[in-house]
C-alpha cells in the first residue's frame, strides 16, 4: 500500500457529469497515487460506472463530462481513449470470442518484434497461472480463468491507470479472493493507479481511499 506521501498519479476533478435526463454526478475529486486502489461505492444508478467511463473516454452518446482528468501530470480527458493509457476491466471479461487466449493477449501487447510480443503474452499468461491455455478457445474456459485472462490482457497494454467496474461480481467467494490478490498485487507491483467500483465491502483495499456516491 503506498504511503500517504506518495505523489498522485491519477487526479479526477469532476464538476458535472450529465446524462440526457439530467445531472448524474457533480463536484467530485479523487486522487489516486501509483500502486493504490481507490474504491467507489454507491447504490445502483448513482453514476459509478459512468464515472469510470468518463475517465476512460467511453461515455455513451448524449452524456457529457465537465471536469478534468490528469494522469501522471498529463491531462487525458481531451485525448481519445486509445491514447489515455487507462485500462478497463468490467464485470464481464469481454474476451474476443473469435481469438484464442494467446491472440487475445497479443492484441493488447504494444507494437514490437513478433517474437518479443509473443513471449510477453506467454509470460503474462504464466503470471495469471494459465500457462497451458495459450491456444484455447476462450469460450471453453471457466469464469475464473476468463477473468484472469482478461486481467492479463489489461495489464499487457501497460496502462498507467486501471478502471475496475465490479470485476469480481461474477466470481464465487474463493475465486474473488484469489482475483483480488492477483489484481491488487499487479496494481501495486506495477505502480498503477486503480479505481474500483464495487457493491461488496470486502473488495475495499484501503478504507482511506473510499468514495461513497449517493
Amino acid at each position, binding site marked *: 500500500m503506498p504511503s500517504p506521501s506518495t505523489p498522485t498519479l491519477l487526479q479526477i476533478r469532476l464538476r458535472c457529469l450529465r446524462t440526457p435526463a439530467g445531472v448524474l454526478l457533480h463536484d467530485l475529486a479523487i486522487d489516486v497515487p501509483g500502486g493504490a486502489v481507490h474504491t467507489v461505492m454507491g447504490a445502483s444508478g448513482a453514476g459509478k460506472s459512468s464515472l469510470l467511463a468518463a475517465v476512460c473516454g467511453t461515455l455513451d452518446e448524449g452524456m457529457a463530462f465537465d471536469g478534468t482528468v490528469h494522469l501522471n501530470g498529463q491531462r487525458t480527458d481531451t485525448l481519445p481513449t486509445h491514447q489515455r493509457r487507462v485500462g478497463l476491466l468490467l464485470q464481464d471479461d469481454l474476451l474476443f470470442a473469435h481469438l484464442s487466449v494467446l491472440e487475445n493477449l497479443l492484441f493488447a501487447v504494444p507494437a514490437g518484434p513478433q517474437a518479443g510480443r509473443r513471449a510477453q503474452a506467454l509470460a503474462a499468461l504464466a503470471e495469471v497461472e494459465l500457462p497451458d491455455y495459450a491456444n484455447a478457445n476462450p469460450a471453453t474456459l471457466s469464469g475464473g480463468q476468463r477473468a484472469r485472462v482478461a486481467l492479463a490482457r489489461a495489464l499487457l497494454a501497460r*496502462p498507467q491507470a486501471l478502471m475496475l467496474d465490479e470485476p469480481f461480481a461474477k466470481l464465487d467467494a474463493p475465486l474473488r479472493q484469489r482475483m483480488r490478490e492477483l489484481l491488487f498485487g499487479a496494481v501495486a507491483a506495477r505502480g498503477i493507479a486503480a479505481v474500483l467500483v464495487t457493491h461488496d465491502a470486502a473488495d475495499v483495499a484501503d478504507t482511506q481511499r473510499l468514495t461513497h456516491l449517493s
Partner: protein
Amino acid sequence: MFPTSFAFARKHLAALLLAAAVGLPLLWSLAAAALAGLDATAWTALASQPQTAPALWLSLYTGLAATALALAGTALLLAHSFGTPRWTRLLGRLPAMLALPHAAFAIGLLLLIAPSGWLVRTGVALVAPFDAWLGLGLALDAPPAWQSTQDPWGLGLIAVLALKEIPFLLWTAAAQLQRPDVARRLTLELRLAQTLGYSPRSAWWRVAWPQLLARLQAPLLAVLVYSLTVVDVALIAGPSTPPTLAVLAWQWLQDADPARNAMGAAAAWLLAAVVTTLALAGLLAQRYGRGWAAARWARGVALIDEVKVRQAQADPVAAAMTCTDTARSRSAPTQAAAYGLGGGRAGGGTGALTLAYSAVAAALALGSVIGVWPFPDLWPQAWTWQAWHAVADSAPVVWTTLGLALTSSAAALLWAVAWLECAPLAWQRRLQGLLYLPLLLPSVLWALGLHRLALAWGIDGNITGLWLAHILCVLPYVLLSLQGPYGGFDARLQAVAASLGRTRWAFVWRIKWPMLRAALAASFAVGFAVSVAQYLPTLYVGAGRFGTATTEAVALAAGGQRSLMAAFAALQWLLPALVFGLAAWAGRARRFPAPARVAPPAASASKKLSHTLQ
C-alpha cells in the same frame, strides 16, 4: 470540449455523404413516380376500366391470404421448434430456401402441380395398378382438364407466396432471436414461465410470441407489400383474366399508348394507397388490440413479473416455493418436455417446409433435363442436356446476371457497413423509413420511379443505370439483414479495445468485422439473391436490352419450352445457392485446436519479461 471533435465532424460528414448518395436517387425516383401519377384523366380512365375492380379485389385477397398464411406458418414453426435441435437444423436450411427466388419457386411448383406435372403423374402411377379393381377411372391417359396452374381463384399464387415468405419471416425472426440481448431475456423469461407450470408451448405463446411479433412488424409489412404488388410471380402463377392489379399496371406501363401508360402509373399509386391503408389499419388494430392481448396474456406475465420481483429481492425460498407450487398444480408432465415443443408435430412442420422446398428444387433440376415425356409416364423416355446447352449459349445472360448481382450486392454491403459505422444512431433511426422505402412501395411503382430517374440522368438502357437500380433494390435487404447483428454487437468491446491502446480502425479490422464475418457474408448473399431475382427494374431500366436468368425464366414461363424454362429457373436458384454456400463457409465458426501445452519461455527469460511487464 470534445476530445475527438475532428473525428466527430469527419464521421458526420461521411454519414451525410452516404445519406445523400442513396437518399438523392431514392427521393428523385419517388418524386418522379409521384409526378407520373398526377394525371386526373388517367385516374378517371382507371376508375372506368372494367378490369380494375376485380384485379384490385384479386390483389387484395391473394396478398392478405398469403401474408396471413405465411405469418401463421412462421408462428407455428417457431412455437414448435424454437429452442429444440429442430430449430437449429431449420436455421441451417434457411439460406438454401432463401436462395430460391420467388419466380424460380413458382416455376418449380408449377412443374409439380400442373395437370401434366409430377404430382398427377405420381398419383396416376400409384393408382393405375388398382384402377381396374377399384373401377374409379383414375388411370388417366391424358392430363386432367382442371386448372391447377394460374387458377382463377389465385390459390396457386397464394400457395407460392405463402410458402416463399415463411423462410423470410423465419429468418427475420431468427435475426431477432439471435441478438444476444433479446435471446438472453427471452430464454430467461421462457424458463421462468415454465417454472410457473406453463408448458413450453404455452410459455412461448404467452411470453415470447407477443414480444417477437412486435419486432416483426416491418418484415411483415414488407411481406404484405410484396404479396400485394408482386408482378413476376403473379405472371407465372396468378390468374390472367383478370390478372392482379400489379400485373395490370405493369402491362399498361409497357403499352406504347401514353394514356395507358398514365393509367398504369395511376394503378401503381392505387396499389400504394391500398398498401398504406392496410398498414395504417394494421397499426390501429395493433394499438386497440393491445388491450385485448394484454388481458389475454396478463395472467402469465403477471406471474412471471412476480417471480422476477422475488428474485430481485434475492428471496430464493419464495422463488423455489413458487416453482414447486405451480409446477405441482399445473401440467406437471409438460415440465419434462422442457423445450421439446410438441414432438412429432414440430418435426412435421419443419419437415413439410423442407419437403416442399426439396420437391420444388428437384422439379427444377429434373425438369431442366427432361426430354420426351409423354403423359402419364412417371419418368421421361429420354434425358437431355439440351436446355443447359442453350443456357451455356446464352453466356451474356449468365454474365449479366452474375456481374450485376456481384457488383450491386458488394456496393450495397459497402454502403451499409459504412452507414452503420459512421451514421449516428439518431440519424439511422430517422432515415430508416426512407432507406426501407423500396421494401414498402409497390415494385411496379418503384420500377416506374427508377425508370424516370434513369431517363432524367441519361442512364436508361445502359449498364450503369441498371447497376444503380439494382443497388437501390438490393440495399434495403442488405441493410435489414446487417442491422440486427450490428445493433446487437456488444459496444463494450470497443471500449475494451480502446483501453488496450488500440485505435478504432484496429478494433474494426481485427475484432468487429471478424466477429461479424458471418453476418457480413450472409448479407452479401442476401443482396446477391435479391439482385438475381430482380425482374421489373431489369426490364424497365434496362429497356429490355439486358437479359438475366430471371427475365429469361419469366419470359419462358409463358411459352412451351418446359425444360429451358426449368433450366433458367434452376440457374436463378443455383447462383444464389452457391453464394449462400460460400457465405456459410466464409462465416463458419473458427475451430480451435484441442488444448495443448505451449512451451513457456525459458525460466530466466520469463522472469526478465515479467520484470519488464512490471
